[in-house]
């Protein structure tokens, strides 16, 4: 027994080293698949405060850009609003005789709520990039919600604390987003393979369709994370490798991830109903 203790004492540094490394590996493996409440990451309350303070300073340097984006988005929204107003003025169904009155169909109402939030931490140059936003459970943010910006898809909520949340960016080696070609609705999967943060890969587009450079890629809406038709990017390169039955398509992302300052978190109010239905019928939902 004494020898054993002597042995442990002699190699204590090595044993502590092994112990800590095993702990680290455990953390790495666990965190990769983890989704839920935040403890030790940038959504943590105190860490979030530091990052909030930092972005409070650096945001001033980007104020012009931020204003420009918001102004142009406002203009686009106003234009859309004008079209709708025009359409409702032309449409006189509501003022018709009561016998013909058709109440608005509630199933046509979009089930999506958007919550605007400030980005307080962001990275684009690592293999697995995350964002931190200054909204948490107090504002109704839940893990698994989609995140979009005025220009397109950004990512998906990973962990939340009371006032902050981390977002798995599209620029994450394990992030998959269901997407389709806008012109003919062929669907594939968007993934990022590291390196340049302006381009991603569109996979699983079969060889019989004819994608062209410049074609628009949007989200498919086949899951409850993103609404249908959110911009992802435009096709920048098409390759047909001889040993593959799918195209290798490069997509130029419409979002400039290095310049993100405000994003919208998408809440789908029908999420639970749809997810549980699909699960009950035995369809394995695409988790991304």
């Amino acid at each position, binding site marked *: 027994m004494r020898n054993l203790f002597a042995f442990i004492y002699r190699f204590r540094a090595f044993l*502590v080293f092994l112990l800590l490394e095993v*702990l680290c590996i455990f953390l*790495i493996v666990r965190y990769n698949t983890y989704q839920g409440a935040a403890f*030790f990451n940038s959504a943590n309350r105190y860490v979030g405060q530091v990052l909030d303070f930092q972005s409070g300073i650096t945001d001033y340097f980007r104020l012009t850009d931020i204003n420009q984006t918001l102004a142009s988005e406002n203009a686009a929204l106003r234009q859309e609003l004008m079209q709708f107003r025009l359409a409702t003025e032309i449409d006189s169904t509501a003022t018709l005789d009561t016998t013909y009155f058709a109440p608005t169909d509630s199933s046509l109402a979009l089930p999506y709520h958007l919550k605007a939030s400030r980005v307080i931490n962001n990275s684009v140059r690592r293999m697995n990039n995350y964002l*931190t936003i200054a909204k948490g459970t107090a504002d109704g943010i839940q893990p698994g919600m989609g995140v979009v910006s005025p220009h397109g898809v950004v990512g998906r909520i990973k962990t939340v604390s009371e006032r902050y949340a981390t977002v798995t960016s599209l620029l994450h080696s394990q992030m998959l987003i269901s997407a389709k070609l806008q012109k003919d609705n062929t669907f594939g999967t968007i993934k990022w393979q*590291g390196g340049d943060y302006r381009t991603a890969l569109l996979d699983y587009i079969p060889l019989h369709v004819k994608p062209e450079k410049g074609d628009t890629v949007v989200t498919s809406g086949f899951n409850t994370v993103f609404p249908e038709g959110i911009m992802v990017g435009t096709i920048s390169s098409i390759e047909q490798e001889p040993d593959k039955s799918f195209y290798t398509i490069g997509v130029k992302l419409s979002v400039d991830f290095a310049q993100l300052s405000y994003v919208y978190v998408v809440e789908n109010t029908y999420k639970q109903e749809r997810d549980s239905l699909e699960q009950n019928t035995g369809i394995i939902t695409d988790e991304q």
Partner: protein
Amino acid sequence: MNNSFGLNHIIQFFLFVALQVLLMDNLALYSMGFCFIYVAFLLYLPLTINRVWLLVLGFAVGFTVDVFYDTMGIHAAASVLLAFLRPHVLNLLTPRDGYDSSDAVNIHVMGTRWFLTYAFTLILLHHMAVFFLETINFQTALYTMAKTLLSTLFTGIVVVIIQLLFFSPKRERIDYR
């Protein structure tokens, strides 16, 4: 430099972590060269520090950076590796007549060659651990190696600059207390 762990090093801990999180996070050369300046905290610790204590400090600083970077465990693992290897590297680099009691990790005291070998070896190993843990696969090993080398150069140069700027060339600091 004092030869024991003290207030000085605690201040360095916060200083280097703050520098890492607030400033160096935004700096990347050609999106390949990263500066992980927080390793300087581990490099500048006293030569005779207890090995177990060193490992714990390595874990602490790596974990703190991980929390800010959302890379749970990666920097902690690399820092613990660095902390484990540091005494061995120091052993290999022992001057002919052993370390003096007044010796410290200081470019003026130990000489440029000693310091560069010491710093660059450990930084290289640390960065290699970080980048390979980040990608896991070995398909892009060449790209990862290039990233490691450029980043090692970047971090190493910053570490040397900090030495030249803030560490006094005197052999022993005069204690005014």
